[in-house]
């Protein structure tokens, strides 16, 4: 037992690091999910219900947002999935810097623990995951925990970035060209470029917040030469690209799942990679002002970024065409991972298309900071991302454990969750149109949205049941699952050519690839 523990604590194996990331991020997901349930309980009726203290609600909301984004989605996608899959997909023995990799996962755990201290501290942070000053500097709450969490997780992410960029660039199996990479590997590459470029900006911004609050500097104090808006600019300068740090890997894993379960080539691979992923990479840094449409930014800036924001629809649209096109003349089965991946198409359609009105500054002037916003971004990023992650976990489950999960339970849990999220987030957008602002602990002045809130709370219960069933499924399958074999899905991608679970070093011998090898070579005489 102690040996096993030591092995995991000091591991530098990318697969074990990946699984550690999975455990940490799913734990964060569970706690942040409980926060969501508490909030939904509070909002089940107007006026105070389960807490009469709005600050308590604000703390739940803070933790839910910060932990879901920084502690669950980014680590699950760029930590777990990237770590587990990328070296396998490119036919490498490990990542370029295994020890840095181990350091990064432990920094991640430190960040999670720091974030969890929210629940034992006397004055927990209540600054939302955005941490806007001046509020974050004048609040009673301990903003420092927010700053330190961001810094630790950011640093972990930077280490990951250095690792994966170099791994993908220099450690591909002999013969593997750039155009033979899995879409997922490409998306991780792009996501980490964004992460490396922009994380330091966020780190600087939250550090200055901390200096202002605890060391008496005046970076953001408007009475002393500071400017409240410069923080928002710095924050979104990172945090909008961060949306793509989440979006790219999750759409990447969806591509891989869809190709596998449709047993089909990616439709127009180069369009997806260079037009889709490349386009997002180019535009990611030029759209952040759309988060500041109602802050009195100069008109030319708002109008300019309205155009760049709308332009995001071009690369995303190309990816959609690639994704739907991959189904064309395919041979489609509907296993649990495929259901999750297909639902991402649906969720992204709703979420992505509702982003279009929000990109238009004059429409956003009414909808900004209303319930429409959480509705929109939960569809496009939170739920779509989470479903992609869950799909990824189901997809890789036989690879990671060598065992098969229960398909029936998986599908049941999927459908419960799917109905649940739509019950939560579609009414949420409607409540926004009715005039309800976000981050409200009480909505008694909006009697017209009460019915919608009942729906949302009911949906949240379904979501919780669905996710809980998924957890039960995994844990049960971990011990009692049927042996899955090396390649239960019949995939052509490299990760499925080795044993399940793969041994240390991944491949018995490093694969040598020919010029016309492709991870998606279906339908050809293989």
């Amino acid at each position, binding site marked *: 037992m102690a040996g096993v523990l030591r092995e995991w604590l000091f591991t530098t194996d990318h697969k074990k690091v990946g699984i550690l990331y999975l455990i940490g991020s799913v734990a964060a997901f569970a706690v942040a999910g409980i926060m969501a349930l508490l909030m939904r309980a509070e909002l089940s009726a107007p006026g105070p219900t389960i807490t009469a203290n*709005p600050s308590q609600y604000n703390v739940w909301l803070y933790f839910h947002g910060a932990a879901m984004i920084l502690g669950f989605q980014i680590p699950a996608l760029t930590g777990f999935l990237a770590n587990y899959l990328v070296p396998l997909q490119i036919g490498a023995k490990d990542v370029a810097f295994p020890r840095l990799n181990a350091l990064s996962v432990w920094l991640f755990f430190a960040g999670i623990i720091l974030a969890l201290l929210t629940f034992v501290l006397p004055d927990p942070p209540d600054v939302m995951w955005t941490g806007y000053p001046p*509020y974050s500097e004048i609040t009673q709450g301990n903003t420092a925990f927010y700053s330190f969490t961001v810094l630790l997780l950011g640093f972990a992410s930077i280490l990951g970035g250095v690792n994966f960029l170099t791994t993908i660039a220099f450690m591909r199996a002999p013969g593997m060209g750039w155009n033979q990479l899995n879409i997922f590997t490409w998306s991780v590459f792009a996501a980490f470029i964004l992460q490396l470029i922009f994380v330091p900006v966020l780190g600087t911004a939250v550090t200055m917040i901390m200096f202002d609050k605890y060391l008496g500097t005046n970076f953001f104090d408007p009475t002393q030469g500071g400017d*409240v808006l410069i923080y928002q600019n710095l924050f979104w300068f990172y945090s909008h690209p961060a949306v793509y740090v989440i979006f790219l890997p999750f759409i990447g894993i969806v591509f891989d799942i869809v190709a596998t379960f449709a047993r089909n080539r990616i439709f127009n691979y180069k369009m997806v990679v260079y037009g889709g992923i490349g386009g997002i990479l180019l535009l990611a840094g030029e759209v952040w002002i759309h988060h500041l449409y*109602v802050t009195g930014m100069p008109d030319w800036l708002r109008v300019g970024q309205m155009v760049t924001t709308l332009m995001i*629809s071009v690369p995303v*649209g190309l990816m959609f065409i690639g994704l739907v096109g991959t189904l064309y003349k*395919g041979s489609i089965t509907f296993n649990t991972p495929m259901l999750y991946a297909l639902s991402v198409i649906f969720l992204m359609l709703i979420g992505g298309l509702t982003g279009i009105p929000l990109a238009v500054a004059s429409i956003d002037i009414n909808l900004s900071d*209303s319930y429409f916003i959480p509705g929109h971004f939960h569809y496009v990023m939170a739920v779509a991302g989470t479903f992609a992650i869950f799909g990824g976990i189901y997809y890789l489950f036989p690879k990671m454990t060598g065992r098969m999960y229960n398909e029936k339970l998986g599908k049941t849990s999927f459908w419960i969750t799917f109905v649940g999220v739509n019950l939560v987030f579609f009414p949420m957008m409607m409540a926004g149109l009715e005039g309800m602002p*976000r981050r409200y602990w009480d909505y008694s002045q909006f009697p017209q949205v009460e019915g919608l809130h009942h729906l949302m709370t009911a949906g949240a219960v379904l979501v919780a049941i669905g996710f809980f069933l998924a957890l039960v499924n995994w844990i049960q399958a971990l011990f009692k699952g049927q042996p899955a074999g090396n390649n239960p899905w019949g995939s052509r991608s490299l990760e499925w050519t080795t044993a399940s679970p793969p041994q240390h070093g991944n491949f018995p011998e490093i694969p040598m690839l020919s010029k016309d090898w492709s991870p998606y070579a279906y339908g050809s005489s293989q």
Partner: protein
Amino acid sequence: MAEPMKRWLRWAGMVLMLTALSGGMALAQSRVETQRVLPGEWQVEERVIPDNVSGWDHLWEEILIDITVIGVIFALVTFWFLFRYRRRDPDQEGAMPKLSVGQAVGWAVIPVFVFMADDFYLAAQGWQLWNDYRSVPEDRLEIRLESAMWTWDYTYPNGVKTFNELRVPAGKPVLLRMTSRDTIHSHWIPDYRVKEDSMPGRITYIWFMPKVPGEHVVTCAEYCGHLHSRMKGKLIVMAPEAFEAWYEAEGAKLQQAKLETTGGA
């Protein structure tokens, strides 16, 4: 190697040219728009007072139709594929046809133009409405707003102050000049489709056109701590005569109070 390369380059050249062309056209179009309505918010210009509420509703409906059409097309195609190409035999593999270079480029370029055309169209529409939101009628009531945790303080031109209750006459545009005492708030009047943040150290403006007497909700849209959700106010649109009477009476009361304090000192 050389031949496909050349073809690619030719395609790429055409794409660039078309992009430049469509971009230029969109820009020229919007230039025309701006000159017509003047972007500067405070231009002195007599013109019909834009109705931003119906302008907003109209654009919203237009975009809603636009995105619904796109969404339904994608969804129908997806469902059709899922049904048509479901696996019928366990050993069946996909049969994606190999795209020629022309097809591959076409499948990238044509959608790009379709999406961009839609984007530019929406941007131009949005820009026009934006200009309406920004061009304030010259004849207006200017009220100063200072927000604080957790109250809206309004000061009228004659010095009268109200708290969480904004009284305005029907039929006259109202402009709020906003700032904040402590943290950031956002003054939202959902019924008038308008909001803007109020910030310490910065000045922002919104305007709206109350038409008929009635009451509307004012609510805070930027997270501001403990009682964020209780930071609500009322917008009371009054008949012009009733407003005038209230305004004069409050002004007189204020004068009286001033006289008393200076007289007493």
